[in-house]
């Protein structure tokens, strides 16, 4: 292994270690505030929580069964979807619009609203070019708080279901959402946004800035930049735009809430959103922070921290494999870039390798780390162009997304997917040795198995269905920038990103068309709501069961053996669903162009 690979992996290991060190205390804090225990935070913000609950007409003691919890979550998602659609379509008549952005057409608004209420943050248009400050701050950013809050509520419903003694009750959905926003997401976002602001991320409600170009450029009749002596040049451009707006506040929560939707189209590759190595490090660490803390909170909630550590170990193994693969591929660059020795692809001072689509202040290694973490968690923010990644650097993110949010995943949804896989593993392992399956003292019956299977398999089914629709669409209705294997990767990436509620893109797909907006919009809603319903149903039937004391015949779910089995099941399900599609896209590209 070269020095550049080693140094990039050391940095990655340091970041993951730091996140884990923060996730341990955060997991205890999460349990305390979500379970309504008295903490310093509740002493300060308790009156706000109580006022909100009074206004909503809900009480903590009014604990819901799984059906009511699910209906509440669906109603809330519907309200958010309707409200956000109205804001996006009506932004022309709303305040905070210094650039005079017109309301979005219905198909774009549908896609964006579906995207942000499902914690996906896929964006068919670049925010800085089409959205008013109101749409960004009071529309999209609000969903950046609420969609992870819904995820946290669902995760705690599942944890209460695992811990309950036959009550069938999962907690109050509305109280959970308020607590998640008030005690977890808002304080963390405020802290991160202030660091970003200090480092250079804009935060203003004034309009964009216009600046002089030191070297004016010539453009042709279509507005494309051409050489000054080009006969097609029709006029000179002497000024450039600097997009401003309430960026720091939005960037913080898009990272912490595993949302990923940038204020700007360039996302965190833009030096405005991500100005320094410090902001890059913190934004990168913010993505897995809450998902990791939730995995550890799982152990605390079921009264056996080893259970949380076992799941965490499985997550870290998958993360480690993905990291090594992407860092090695990006550091090695491609023969196309090396251009027979005309281009130096060695160490430029901490950034050797594939600089295409990467930013100089960030470098190749941290960009590779980010690409892995943004797709391992269901964030989808980017600090480099995903299209500029090597074929392996594209394939690994597709796999991480396609596995179904198990490597951290989205806030709440990641833990739910992981528990779904654990239940599946318990069932298979127990049948192999002829024991009756049980997890954490709860018997796993046919009802639990059905729901766990739906939760685990539905995202992959949704992804493959959408990829099929996009690939079979008539020529012209769906277009990509390049053809062949890469063009298919583009479609597959978009479908995977939407179905897994990730939101990152290869960006070669012309995404803002009615067909693509519609297909991906429906896909994002299904990829979010079907597993959510299955997980809450699973939680409900677990909550109705009395825990059994574990006997000599009980399979230990905290042992290395179980972690290994869990990994085999995750990889097996992932390989069965994804390999054929991967072979047609990035794998074909890797074998034909790089090797």
């Amino acid at each position, binding site marked *: 292994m070269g020095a550049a690979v080693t140094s990039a992996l050391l940095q990655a290991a340091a970041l993951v270690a730091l996140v884990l060190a923060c996730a341990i205390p955060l997991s205890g804090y999460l349990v305390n505030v979500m379970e309504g225990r008295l903490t310093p935070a509740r002493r300060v913000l308790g009156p706000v929580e109580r006022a909100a609950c009074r206004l909503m007409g809900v009480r903590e003691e009014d604990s819901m069964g799984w059906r009511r919890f699910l209906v509440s979550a669906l109603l809330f998602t519907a309200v958010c979807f309707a409200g956000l659609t109205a804001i996006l379509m009506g932004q022309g008549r709303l305040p905070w619009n210094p650039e005079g952005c017109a309301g979005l057409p219905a198909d774009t608004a549908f896609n964006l609203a579906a995207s942000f209420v499902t914690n996906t943050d896929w964006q068919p248009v670049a925010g800085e070019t089409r959205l008013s400050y109101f749409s960004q701050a009071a529309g999209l950013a609000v969903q950046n708080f609420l969609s992870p809050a819904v995820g946290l509520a669902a995760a705690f419903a599942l944890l209460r279901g695992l811990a309950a003694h036959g009550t069938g009750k999962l907690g109050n959905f509305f109280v959970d959402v308020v607590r998640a926003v008030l005690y977890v997401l808002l304080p963390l976002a405020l802290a991160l946004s202030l660091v970003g602001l200090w480092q250079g991320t*804009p935060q203003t409600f004034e309009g964009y800035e216009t600046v002089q170009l030191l070297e004016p450029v010539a*453009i042709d009749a279509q507005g494309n930049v051409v050489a000054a002596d080009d006969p097609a040049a029709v006029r000179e451009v002497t000024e450039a735009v*600097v997009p401003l707006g309430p960026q720091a506040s939005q960037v913080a929560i898009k990272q912490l809430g595993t949302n990923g939707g940038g204020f700007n189209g360039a996302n965190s590759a833009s030096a405005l959103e991500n100005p320094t190595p410090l902001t890059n490090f913190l934004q990168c660490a913010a993505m897995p922070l809450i998902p990791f803390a939730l995995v550890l909170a799982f152990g605390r909630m079921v009264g056996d921290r080893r259970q949380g550590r076992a799941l965490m170990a499985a997550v870290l193994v998958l993360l480690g494999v993905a990291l090594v693969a992407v860092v090695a591929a990006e550091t090695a660059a491609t023969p196309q870039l090396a251009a027979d020795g005309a281009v130096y692809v060695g160490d430029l001072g901490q950034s050797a390798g594939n600089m295409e689509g990467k930013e100089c202040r960030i470098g190749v290694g941290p*960009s590779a780390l980010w690409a892995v973490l943004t797709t391992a968690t269901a964030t989808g923010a980017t600090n480099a162009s995903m*299209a500029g990644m*090597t074929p392996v650097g594209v394939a690994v993110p597709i796999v991480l997304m396609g596995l179904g949010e198990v490597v951290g995943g989205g806030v709440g949804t990641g833990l739910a997917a992981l528990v779904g896989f654990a239940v599946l593993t318990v069932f298979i392992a127990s049948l192999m040795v002829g024991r009756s399956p049980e997890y954490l003292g709860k018997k796993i019956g046919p009802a639990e198995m059905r729901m766990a299977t739906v939760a685990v398999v539905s995202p992959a089914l949704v992804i493959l269905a959408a990829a099929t629709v996009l690939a079979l669409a008539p020529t012209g209705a769906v277009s990509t920038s390049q053809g062949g294997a890469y063009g298919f990767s583009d479609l597959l990436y978009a479908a995977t990103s939407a179905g897994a509620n990730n939101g990152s893109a290869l960006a070669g797909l012309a995404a803002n068309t009615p067909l693509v907006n519609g297909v991906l919009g429906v896909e994002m809603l299904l990829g979010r709501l079907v597993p959510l319903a299955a997980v809450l149903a699973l939680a409900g039937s677990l909550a109705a069961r009395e825990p059994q004391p574990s006997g000599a015949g009980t399979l230990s779910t905290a042992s290395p053996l179980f972690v290994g089995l869990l990994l085999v099941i995750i990889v097996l399900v992932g390989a069965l669903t994804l390999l054929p599609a991967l072979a047609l896209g990035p794998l074909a590209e890797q074998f034909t162009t790089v090797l």
Partner: protein
Amino acid sequence: MNGTTIARGAASAAVLFLLATVLCGIVYPWAVAGVGAVAFPAQATGSIIEVDGVKYGSELVGQPFSDPTHLWGRPTVANATTFAGEDGEPLLWYEPENISPASDEFAAVVAERAAVVRAAHPGEGDAPVPSDLVTASGSGFDPHISPAAAEYQVGRIAAATGRSEEEVRAIIRQCTEKPLLGALGASRVNVLKVNLMLDGIL
């Protein structure tokens, strides 16, 4: 679950949406903007470099440079169709290149860029061109290049401006940001700042 329960749930959902819009969508961003206006006014408004009333750009947004007297940055993909000024005059804006680094198309783009850079730097002979001078960045407007890419251009800038190579290097050094604590991030040179200093503006 009856109709009343569902109606009550819908009402709670609507109230929660409105409360969150006020708290997370109005109070939170304005509070951060307030801190910005008081504590970090320059950063909050885009880190604009302003000299004698002229705004020359943002420290965080690169510009296209091709003049022999200037330091060149990352290749930009710019257009003048996205934004227009108050009088309708076109304004420059950037987009990512979004091209696969394993494609033939990319190989052709890189070969062409490398040939242009090499032709402009005969003093560098057959030395390979630093990769950041022939690759577009993730944003399309990376404000920085690596110290190696800056050093590659020193001879050409010195010859074109009549400055000594040492003077050019001193300016580049002044505009070089180091990794945080010597470990985090990469060393990088702010291209716009170098050129404003070369032009005697900054």
